[in-house]
């Protein structure tokens, strides 16, 4: 099988993860920009991060046969910090880059005015740059946050088909299903969404416009839960075709709207490959 993880924070992960993901069938991923787990204190900290998402991280991923793309944005949490918000002026030049396939993560955390301003502005940037948008929904008061999110998406004029609303659960999924936006689910070890709950949602809502991600980061999370979800789907009677749609074709279709998702060929039966070494020499350790 082949897996496209549409939301994972690889800068926080080790090469062991890359190796395990490759072995599990992950061949491509999108890393959206978010916060570091502790506050940034300057715009420079963002631009260094963006540069890493466009340079070093895709290189690291390639060493393990995984194609790395990214989404860039000012995240909701740091939209509240005036030391960080000026990064919005830097964003337009970054959104021109070849490997940027979406604006994200944007959306709400505490539902403040500052968050709303940054959210609206960045939906506008997505529209102007022809990029889809990856929208984070808040961890607390999620239903209200999701409803407001959908209002702002509608008001922005960006087509709902170009918006992925992420971190959904049983309560918020019907709202998003009706909106025409894509539905993202972050499968966590025991919080946001679990593989078994995900299977029940797929049974209720079907497989179209649904994306499954691990959203693995520096916290308690697991980059292989996409793979585990696929297994749970099969055990529940979903076909290989259903699994491929949710874990590969749907994310590809969503991000391909950017016109920049230049995937090297990946066969439907992903097989371990190790062809990305530079000129036959391993640079896995960045030197030896």
């Amino acid at each position, binding site marked *: 099988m082949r897996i496209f993880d549409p939301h994972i924070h690889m800068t926080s992960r080790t090469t062991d993860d890359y190796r395990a993901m490759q072995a599990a069938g992950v061949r491509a991923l999108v890393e959206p920009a978010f916060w570091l787990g502790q506050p940034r204190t300057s715009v420079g900290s963002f631009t260094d991060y963006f540069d890493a998402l466009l*340079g070093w991280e*895709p290189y690291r991923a390639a060493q393990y046969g995984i194609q790395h793309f990214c989404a860039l944005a000012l995240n909701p949490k740091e939209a509240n910090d005036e030391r960080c918000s000026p990064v919005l002026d830097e964003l337009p030049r970054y959104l021109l*880059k*070849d490997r940027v396939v979406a604006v994200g993560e944007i959306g709400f955390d505490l539902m403040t005015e500052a968050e709303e301003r940054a959210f609206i502005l960045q939906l506008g940037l997505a529209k102007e740059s022809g990029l889809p948008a990856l929208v984070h929904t808040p961890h607390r008061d999620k239903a209200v946050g999701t409803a407001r999110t959908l209002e702002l998406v509608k008001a922005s004029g960006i087509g709902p088909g170009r918006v992925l609303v992420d971190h959904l659960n049983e309560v918020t999924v019907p709202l998003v299903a009706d909106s025409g936006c894509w539905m993202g689910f972050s499968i966590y070890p025991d919080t946001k969404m679990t593989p078994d709950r995900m299977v029940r949602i797929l049974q209720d809502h079907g497989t179209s416009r649904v994306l499954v991600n691990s959203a693995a980061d520096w916290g308690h999370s697991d980059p292989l839960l996409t793979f585990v979800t696929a297994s749970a789907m099969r055990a529940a009677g979903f076909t290989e075709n259903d699994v491929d749609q949710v874990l590969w074709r749907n994310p590809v279709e969503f991000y391909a709207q950017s*016109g*920049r998702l230049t995937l090297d060929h990946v066969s439907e039966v992903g097989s371990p490959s190790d062809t990305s070494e530079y*000129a036959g*020499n391993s640079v896995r350790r960045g030197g030896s």
Partner: protein
Amino acid sequence: MTALRFGYGTNGFANHRLDDALEVIAGLGYSGVALTLDHGHLDPYAPGLVRQLTRVHRRLSALGLGAVVETGARYLLDPWHKHAPTLLDPEPERRAHRLDFLTRAVHIASELGAEAVSLWSGTPDPGMPEEEAWDLLVEGCAALTEVARQSGVRLGFEPEPGMLVADLDGYERLRNALGDPDAFGLTLDVGHCRCLEYDSPADCVRRAAPWLVNIQIEDMRRGVHEHLEFGEGEVDFPSVLQALTEVGYRGLVAVELPRHSHSAPQTAWRSLDALRAASAPPWTTKARDQLGSDPASITRLFPVAARSVGPDPALGEATRIQLLQALPGTGAELASVLMELYDGGDTAERIAVLRALPLLDQAGRVEAHAKGLVEDALRTNDARLVAAAVGPYAARRLDQEQWRQAVLKCVFLGVPLDVVAGLARRRDPELDRMFAAFAAERIAAGRQVPADVRRQLDPDSPA
């Protein structure tokens, strides 16, 4: 759209060592070489040829250069008579000599992984009846075609003005006489088409498309067989290059200027400029115009350039380099723009800036002012950036200490030393000491010494 692959004929670098010619040709941004076997370049009769072939093959692949083998050396077989003997020689032993040479060329091509072996008919002695000359030619070509078939190498027969087979009609006649064999392809010289074909060069390309394995290109005038630099003759290059793209030609398009060795680096530099301009997609032409009136637009054009011209990464890089060449300014002023683009760039953009440096330097536009970019790239752990940084600009501009560290970093990162420009020229006892120390550390740790280092320490070390 796939980019055409431009190459340069090493017969236009006759005053360079082959190794240095490859460095310059790759450094300028060519994708391949048309390698003329000659006394100074892979002499097929020289001792040690096998080892030399291994080395050249390794170097070609490290530099990303494709190759075709050319057999038009003037005095390789007979020091007294140009291009002699030929397949049309009245004496059987002399014909056999040519055939032996061509057979060696096929084997060399096979060793190098070359895409084709080019050959021509020669001119019959005055007095030899035409029918007899044709019989000899068919006989020789048939024998060689069999050798080529067995070696999995394609021949590219080249019509040559003044020779028995001078045009496409002649090639088709010969091909028919041979029974239309797959291995017997065509080398088409675009200038020759202008010189003597009835059709335009672009129409010649369309007509020849099914058999094309090799293209030679240069300017020429009607009726005058003189290989000219681009712009000095009458060939309409955009239409020719367009036709090559249309017919889906994937081989090399190699500049053939054998009388310009005295100015090889400059001529090769101007030629690539001309070819890139003549084949530029409309987006590139527009972007270059825009840079003329608004140089600051580079910050917007540079990041989007690759995807604006299509999915081929090589074309994307060439396009970015063209934009950099279109920037105004020189020296520190130009270098600061390059630095801004490099700093703000993703990896592909940074590599394009690094690869443009030898060209801008060759044009006398940056001198040592852009050294900081190379230093930055050498601090990274990204093998692609390091490989792009150790090109001709670094060889020319880094001081010896920095340069040695760069070479050692290549070894450390697994970047093949064959991509390092000027290694033979700049290597010194201190670098040798560093190689030896590196090897000693590896041996002490019970680890393998990289083949690149073994070869540096002992040129006789097996590959």
